[in-house]
């Protein structure tokens, strides 16, 4: 396999910057046209990836995992000790979840996930990452002032609740397990899963509402 030379790559980037229109639609069109003409991908395969991540793979998967953890203490124990293995019980393993850790919120602690160096995200259980997660503001501020960031999401965290921010610097990905809302005793897994928001599994939402369910 060829090696990757940093100086050569930077030189190509500068050429692209200076000589190609910056319009992303044009850049992606050039990329797709060349890849298709060179037999690297079929256009229908791109459609299939979009369909997979629009309709089948998304935060409803993580919500199902959380609801199972709330209702099945043995599954909860398996999830907290080895989330990578636990999600295979649903067939949810895949892109970026080869090493997964579940971190559980409690009355006196709150977990929040960020990737300051790029935008690492557990795609196969949460689907596409939201735009705010990839924003420079979130990447910059989540580690430095998590409480101020949480307030922007409407989460007013008491001073005596500890925040643990997980910066995804390696191939380990995180799933936050939010607290089960009060008043949901006896609810089944489907009904509970509908309460679990995507943001609560990243850690920018905390107290789940039972109102809509």
């Amino acid at each position, binding site marked *: 396999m060829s090696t990757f030379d940093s100086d050569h790559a930077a030189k190509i980037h500068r050429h692209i910057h200076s000589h190609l229109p910056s319009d992303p639609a044009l*850049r992606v069109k050039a990329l797709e046209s060349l890849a298709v003409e060179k037999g690297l991908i079929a256009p229908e395969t791109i459609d*299939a990836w979009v369909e997979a991540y629009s309709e089948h793979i998304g935060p409803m998967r993580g919500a199902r995992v959380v609801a199972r953890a709330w209702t099945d203490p043995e599954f909860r124990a398996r999830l907290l000790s080895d989330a990578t293995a636990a999600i295979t019980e649903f067939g949810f393993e895949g892109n970026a979840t080869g090493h997964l850790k579940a971190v559980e919120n409690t009355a006196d602690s709150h977990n929040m996930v960020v990737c300051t160096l790029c935008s690492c995200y557990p795609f196969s259980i949460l689907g*596409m990452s939201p735009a705010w997660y990839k924003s420079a503001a979130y990447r910059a501020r989540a580690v430095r002032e998590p409480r101020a960031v949480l307030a922007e999401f409407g989460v007013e965290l008491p001073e005596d609740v500890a925040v643990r921010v997980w910066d995804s610097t390696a191939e380990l990905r995180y799933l936050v397990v939010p607290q089960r809302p009060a008043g949901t005793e006896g609810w089944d897994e489907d009904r509970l899963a509908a309460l679990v928001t995507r943001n609560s599994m990243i850690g920018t939402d905390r107290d789940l509402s039972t109102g809509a369910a």
Partner: protein
Amino acid sequence: MDGIHDLGGKEGFGPVPVTAGDAPFSHDWERRMWGLAREGICPSMTIDSFRHGLELMVPGDYLTFSYFQKWATNYLMLMVDSGQFTLEEIGQGHASDPSTPAKAKTTADIIAQVRAACTDFSVADDTPSRFAIGETVRTLRQIPHHHTRLPAYARNALGEVIAHHGSHLFPDEGAHNRHVGQHLYTVSFTAAELWGDDANPRDTVTLELWESYLVPA
């Protein structure tokens, strides 16, 4: 490298756009970019050479381009760098040497492919680990000029090892397509250690760090 990508702790970006991006895609070109990237059209690319490619973008572009706009630019670079496209072909928008079309895949094919893409980054390694869980360690003050995963905000800081993951693919080498393992740890830092005494004493920031990023405290 001390690149523009290393955003942790930087100030001046303003509020987080909390309501943005609830739909998976905002533009059709983003959908096309996602499919192209996930299908792996650049076989020589590794996860770390992809990241390093992003870090090597023109800094002003890195800060102003959206996520998928960065991907598009980086993929063009990677395809040229690996010799699959020429800059002339990109300018013309057509291949000078068309090949046999690739076989189309269905959504069911892709869902199966996603499951099979559950990559294990651990590396067989019988070297002893240097640090133990519960030990206090210090991170390096200086980093190399190439790809590395020790953010600037966590350099020269004292933290506690809270987990050891065995040996994982070392990104500093992986970025150059070299498959080398190194012990990986989860290290927890108090917010006060990183940001000063005004931080809430209960708060922590936790990172995964490779062994060579750490020295005994």
